[in-house]
């Protein structure tokens, strides 16, 4: 019983990295911009956040710095693809590679530095409940932030005028443009929000789960987050659940191993990716379903007046 609670606990903790990044990417993809630079933004933000937390001793400042760093890189990407109409795929890939190198370069002096291990925050009263307490109410605050952000983003996308506009631009930017909305600026803002959340994800690794800095710290989680947005068919709640599922599968296979159960760990490592491919195959089977879910202008540049 208690062990299962601990399993839930680690699944949530390790899924939070993916959740934060996927939520961010979902926002800019909803606006029609595909940013393959997630991994690069996460890495640069991870090292920036780590350096800030290390020098000031403040995690809050670390996370803020990381979000700003992620947003700054995203803005660079946004200007290139939105205003200069460079290819989104190529630019995103370049951002990933650039971010990897830049973070390694910036982080040289941070290698081998360490922050003390982060304590979990126990929510009063709730944390004392049997089972659900240790499973859901004893976490680093960022775990709750991720849940809060999911709700906020879902509310924004589906319950506000601005959210409707954002989604409309993702579907087809022409009408919004005709109505006088600054399509490109709105897209840029969405891209920056995406970068900021990827930044939080990066700092979550370097400040909480690791907590340290080394080259390539995020180990490909940005790519998984990208897959996750598709897996979630661009819905915030599904992205969060998907992230916990991905995190949970990883933790579960370790849990089984630690308990001496024999399942090929390679097979289990593949599971999240197999699930993604399956979902992709399923949603691609039905054209109407794709139309319903995928932002129709995703990845397409918008040239006003053309």
């Amino acid at each position, binding site marked *: 019983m208690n062990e299962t609670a601990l399993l839930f606990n680690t699944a949530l903790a390790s899924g939070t990295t993916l959740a934060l990044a996927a939520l961010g990417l979902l926002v800019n993809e909803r606006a029609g911009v595909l940013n393959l630079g997630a991994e690069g933004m996460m890495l640069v933000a991870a090292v920036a956040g780590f350096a800030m937390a290390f020098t000031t001793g403040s995690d809050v400042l670390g996370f803020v710095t990381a979000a700003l760093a992620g947003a700054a890189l995203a803005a660079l990407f946004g200007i290139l693809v939105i205003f200069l109409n460079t290819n989104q795929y190529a630019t995103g890939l370049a951002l990933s590679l650039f971010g990897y190198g830049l973070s390694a370069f910036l982080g040289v002096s941070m290698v081998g530095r360490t922050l003390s*291990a982060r304590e979990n925050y126990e929510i009063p009263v709730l944390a004392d409940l049997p089972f659900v307490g240790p499973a859901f109410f004893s976490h680093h605050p960022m775990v709750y932030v991720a849940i809060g952000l999911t709700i906020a983003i879902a509310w924004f996308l589906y319950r506000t005028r601005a959210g409707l506009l954002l989604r409309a631009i993702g579907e087809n930017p022409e009408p919004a443009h005709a109505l006088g909305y600054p399509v490109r600026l709105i897209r840029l803002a969405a891209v920056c929000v995406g970068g900021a959340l990827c930044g939080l994800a990066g700092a979550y690794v370097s400040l909480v789960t690791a907590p340290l800095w080394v080259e390539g710290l995020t*180990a490909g989680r940005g790519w998984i987050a990208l897959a996750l947005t598709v897996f979630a068919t661009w819905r915030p709640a599904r992205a969060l659940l998907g992230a916990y599922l991905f995190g949970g599968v*990883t933790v579960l296979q370790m849990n089984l191993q630690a308990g*001496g159960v024999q399942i090929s760990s*390679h097979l289990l490592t593949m599971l999240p990716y197999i699930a993604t491919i399956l979902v992709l195959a399923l949603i691609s089977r039905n054209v109407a379903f794709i139309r319903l879910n995928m932002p129709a202008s995703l990845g397409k540049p918008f040239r006003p007046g053309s």
Partner: protein
Amino acid sequence: MNSSNSRKMNRRLFAVAGLAATALVVGCGKKEEPAPAAKAASAPAKPEPLKAAWVYIGPVGDAGWTFAHDQGRKAVEAEFGDKVKTTFVEKVPYSDGERVIRDLASQGNKVIFATSFGYMDAMLKVAGEFPDIKFEHATGYKTAPNMNVYDSRFYHDAYVSGIIAGAMTKTNTLGFVASFPIPEVLRNINAFTLGAQSVNPKVRTRVVWVNTWFDPEKEGAAAQELINKRADVLLQNTDSTAVLQTAEKNGKYAFGWDSDMSAFAPKAHLASNIVDWGPYYKKSIKEAMDGSWKGGQRTIWGKPEGTNDVIKMNEVIPEATRKKAQEALDAIKGGTLDPFTGPIVDNAGKERLPKGEKASQDWKDKVDFYVKGVEGKVPTGK
């Protein structure tokens, strides 16, 4: 895989399979490190410095494998001063190994070290083209008249850490965060368990395979799962400090690996298992200088030669245990103790080494089982 030491090859395979993009980023940065400036030009007759080069798989800042090799290179510089001129090329993908090694050879380097398993065939090929240059390959098994292989004995460390772990565990459950099921890693799991059993026969070891050499988040999660399953002393055969830090967070114990990691977890850190390539590099360079260098050799050094050691034992370890660990280190150093001495029984009950017999090198190269006391089965990957 018929070699015992294929760790870096696996690293490569997984990097490619999983994260093509991140792995492909790595261009290779070449850095020249001039030896301390020669003193005035008063000695024009002075011989040219010996040029030596190192090829690294990772960045020198990885705080693990490549970092340790680079410390060895620096030890060479400290020892020979302006008599050597060292160069290194970091982050060289295996696919570029041949080109980089050939470049280094044609630039006049007289000794070239390739510090990862996957450079083996590339180096062998280049060695055939440059018979006058001395080639040294880490952790491989192919040699040539002008090419040696060298390796370390981490299981010396793991055994001594096991002695400490066996005494420190309250739950009689040890945890091991393992990378890939290759003989090198299995030797370490087994030596750790055998060491623990030598002081505490009730000890069991639980193993979690993470299928990576380096992924702090995954290593930390694996450590957490082991702790959740009652393991209270952990060791890892992966490269980051995450396991130590997870132990610290949970009030459990763990060890450093590759380098001194005591600073990362002051309370949880029981000792660090280190590797020091300096002695071997110094010997090789010295022999290259005085002409006694011989090719076709396989050198595996451990505690006796100063390549491996267990350092920075924590004060929290009882005096008697520290003494026992130190005695074991001394006995390994003196050659009177080999962690793999029979009887060794695997965890299915089959005898793998008869009583009183010391394991041969060939036996050690082919370890593919868990000893009694380790739970579960070795993943076959099939």
